[in-house]
């Protein structure tokens, strides 16, 4: 692949950065939950990135969903709830 040839030209430093990339990719892989990617099978960087994007999107959706539920709960509650929420801070 031509990209490999180019990397070989800048030999010393590019070897280090490739390792760096691999470390970062595996660090990212470790942050993903077990169910998404099989950890023993070291997946390609592309797969890890794809799973990461899906995971971030699902986390955004969860935040939206939880915001809606909280909004409903605050609406339904009486004014005492404000005091209760404040007491949660103590």
């Amino acid at each position, binding site marked *: *692949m031509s*990209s490999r040839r180019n990397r070989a030209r800048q030999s010393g*430093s590019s070897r280090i*950065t490739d390792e*760096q*990339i691999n470390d*970062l*990719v595996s*660090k*990212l892989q470790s*942050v*993903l939950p077990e169910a998404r990617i099989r950890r023993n099978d070291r997946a*390609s*960087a*592309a797969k890890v*990135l*794809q799973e*990461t*994007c899906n*995971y*971030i*999107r699902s*986390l*955004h959706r*969860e*935040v*939206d969903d*939880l*915001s*809606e*539920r*909280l*909004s*409903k*709960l*605050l*609406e339904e*509650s009486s004014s005492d*709830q*404000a005091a*209760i*929420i*404040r007491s*949660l*801070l103590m």
Partner: protein
Amino acid sequence: MDLEHSSISKPMIMAFHFLGALSHIQKTTTHSTFVCRCHRIRCAAYTSMALSTGGHSAWSRALLRGKLRRGGLRKRAVILQRPRKRAVRLEEGCQDGADVLRRLVPGSAGMDSAELLDETADYIRCLEEQVSLMRSIVNVVSSL
């Protein structure tokens, strides 16, 4: 809660900010629409997330900058120009994935791949904490 090791932990800072914001929203949105309240809660979630990291990561600074701009406060945008390292390239097939990631993680548009991966891991960890905080609040309030 074990406070022996650190004075105030990150999840506690996040909880403090978020609960304070919720209490304020509760008081000021009695006559607002559901959508409006929902939007404010969502904004409060991302803001408390960003505040809890203390501005160490680019995504938190980007979130807070966005919030300040929307609030009408014009702070002078300090763009930190880091010395441009030779851009680290991922494998050929990954560039699309990296671009999608840059759209998802706030403030990551100008980053090279190494920084991007770092920011993403940090962002995901904070998002998970925020989600678990919100889940516990929902459980507590709905069981009252």
